């Protein structure tokens, strides 16, 4: 499959993935854009991989983490992301918005771990490979992230939430 056809097929999914990582549509688009530029330049090789989308997703993760360092002043605030997801005043959306606001405040790697685990449904081993770290580090990051959410959410969350992932 050529780059153009592949990109058209996978673009929506890549944008969703990047948006989840960044918790911001605009930054997510930027990240995907940068990655597609790079991917196109070497598409003849990437296309031959068994799962090119996984390769590109890893590029997205690297780009996202790098952007967090390079463009930290542009990292969206919780308010911006909150505004994107609360046009609906329904209770459930409000709860989502509150949780998203908490997620936005997490350190980038912790949020990436949660996004890869709970959105991309990757195993800790797969996440470790994608983030270039050890699985135990992934579990530690996830544990800290969940603990932080638990602390910030106060009594709303039971103390054993996420325990099976945290160890």
């Amino acid at each position, binding site marked *: 499959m050529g780059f153009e056809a592949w990109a058209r097929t996978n673009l929506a999914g890549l944008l969703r993935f990047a948006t989840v990582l960044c918790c911001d549509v605009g930054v997510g688009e930027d990240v995907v854009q940068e990655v597609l530029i790079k991917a196109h330049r070497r598409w003849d090789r990437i296309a031959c991989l068994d799962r090119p989308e996984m390769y590109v997703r890893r590029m997205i993760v690297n*780009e996202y983490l790098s952007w967090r360092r390079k463009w930290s002043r542009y990292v969206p605030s919780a308010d911006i992301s909150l505004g994107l997801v609360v046009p609906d005043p329904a209770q459930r959306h409000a709860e989502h918005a509150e949780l998203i606001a908490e997620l936005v405040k997490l350190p980038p790697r912790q949020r990436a771990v949660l996004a890869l685990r709970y959105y991309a449904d990757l195993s800790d081993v797969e996440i470790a490979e994608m983030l270039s770290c050890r699985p135990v580090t992934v579990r530690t990051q996830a544990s800290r992230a969940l603990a932080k959410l638990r602390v910030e959410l106060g009594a709303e969350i039971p103390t054993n939430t996420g325990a099976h992932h945290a160890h």
Partner: protein
Amino acid sequence: MRTEHDIRDAFTAVAATADRSRASERGGVVIPADRPPARVRRRVLVAATAVATATAAVAAPAALSILRADAPIEPATSPTPPDLGDVDRKTIGKTPGITVVPGTGPRTPHGTAPAKVKVPASVIGTHRPATPRATSGDLFHVDLPAGWKQVSSSPAGISQSMEFTAPGGHQCVAKVYVRGGLDPRELPDYAAPMPINGNPGYWVDALLSAGVVDGAVVWRYADDSWAVTSCGSLDDPSGSDPYGRDRTLEKTLAKAVAVNHTR
């Protein structure tokens, strides 16, 4: 009560914003008002640079058109220089950097990656490096090992790049920065130690500020002074692990780099 299921729902809700944004852009190019214009133009410049340096000359504009306008992908007819406007020129000078062209060498064994460790603060420092000063003379030369051939050399400035062909047809690039030219804080948090000629060095999966997206050796040849080597890395297109790669070429080239100036 919030559970892990709620986290999944929250991420799904965030993902849905991407779809809504795409739907709202179908009328044409939309740049959010809160997006810095210089940054947008910088992206265009990077794209144009890709056009100028990549063998596939339509790369960047095609990708740009996919995202920005949801429009038909049309090949660029020429790498027209973009309007630089008030773009940060220092950033631009560092960006075009390295174009990695994969080679056709032997298959790369998988599972050989050295363990990554936390890059110590004593190596990368905690503060932004000193403002780099461009130089006009050659920053470095390479005592080429047998079978290697120099292909090109860029003019020196904040950095200087040279491209080489390695045995087996691999395309490799060496890039040396003047003091302060590369901010080592952009190294990944974790990297595999790979000392070069007694100096602290690391294998990194990506160093985007240097234009490397698929692996490189980065080492500190003097205080606050860094250099990078990278080679075509997708040697095994049939492999399931595109990041498994042979690091010998990068290391060999790095060891052959002899820096002329360390200012």
